């Protein structure tokens, strides 16, 4: 822990969260248009769940790059503080959300004892992230008021999104980094 978190890695970690944040904000119009399209059907929460994978991507990406305990939490917390100052759409919720997502993603790697930075790790972190962020949204976004069918659909949508962005896309990026010998 002491060795991993030296000055250079802390800077790199923050930069990675900022990169993910900027790429995410560049797609802000997708969220808004998706949300607008779904609003007349009362399905706007789906916009949130379809894109949530992009939101949490910094955490598994950082874990895969540093392969060390704490990478997920740190990247999400640092990222959310920076995002809040850059003027995110969600204001104060960004910070709490960042913290919860960080813990959720970290838990996935903790359960595999920080040894599986492969598909097992991805599946584990996808599951924990989906479950914990879903519980949080039950309170924050009032999911608890929806019917059970809608909840199941939302849950599956969220899991697929997290798996695609936090899993597959992260793995592809890590593979590229490994091939260029940047990370081991």
């Amino acid at each position, binding site marked *: 822990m002491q060795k991993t978190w030296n000055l250079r890695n802390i800077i790199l970690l923050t930069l990675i969260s900022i990169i993910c944040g*900027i*790429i995410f904000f*560049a797609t802000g119009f997708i969220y808004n248009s998706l949300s607008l399209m779904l609003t007349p059907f009362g399905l706007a929460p789906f916009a949130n769940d379809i894109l949530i994978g992009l939101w949490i991507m910094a955490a598994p990406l950082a874990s895969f790059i540093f392969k060390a305990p704490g990478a997920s939490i740190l990247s999400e917390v640092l990222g959310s503080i920076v995002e809040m100052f850059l003027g995110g759409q969600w204001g104060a919720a960004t910070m709490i959300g960042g913290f919860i997502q960080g813990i959720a993603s970290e838990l996935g790697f903790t359960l595999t004892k920080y040894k599986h930075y492969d598909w097992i790790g991805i599946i584990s972190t996808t599951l924990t992230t989906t479950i914990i962020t879903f519980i949080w949204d039950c*309170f924050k976004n*009032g999911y608890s008021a929806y019917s059970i069918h809608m909840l199941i659909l939302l849950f599956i949508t969220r899991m697929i999104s997290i798996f695609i962005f936090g899993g597959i896309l992260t793995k592809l990026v890590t593979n590229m980094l490994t091939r260029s010998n940047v990370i081991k």
Partner: protein
Amino acid sequence: MDPALKLITILIIAIEISFTQNLILNFIIIIVSLLILILNKISLKSLLYIFLVPIIPAIGIYAAQLINGSTNYGIILATRVYAYVFLGTTFTKTASIKNLIFTLEQNCKLPAKFAYGVLGAFNLTETIRKEIKQIKLAAAMRNVHLTFFSPTLYFKSIMSALNWSNLLAEGMTSHLFVEDSPRTHFKNININKLDYVKMIIIIFLVQIVLIKF
């Protein structure tokens, strides 16, 4: 008020409104935040921005509850979206990330390497934005269109970030920044006792509103 205490206060309030359903509290938060923002001479442009930006998520969440849930809950959720944004803006407009990090370092025992590392990275935000634009442009010239879906975009930006983090860390070390060694401060920040009182009063008032209404 000290930025660190302000942040804690705002986080406590935000967590409380997440777990409770109180329309009046949401409105009070919005109005008080608005007053604070006006007193701090917020520009008309940013004011419009914070009114317009949450409108799509707020309407979306309201419509979702209207059709698939309960109407009353929908109104609470829509105002909650605004309450979050106003709380966040009140913080970011009245405190800077620099002051927040300095007070966290001096008063909350945040290690100096984290404080200055994050601050250094934060100052690179504009450069990163330019770099991402450049990567996209360079790819577009070869008729490759990179979106948030392409691993290449992330890969190339991370490669640049690796380079910058090395340079920045080297630069800081050559300016005699030594990790884990005690530092002296040009500007000492002490948390005023009055700030603690303010924080307690604000949180106390929030509880009263929650219980009374």
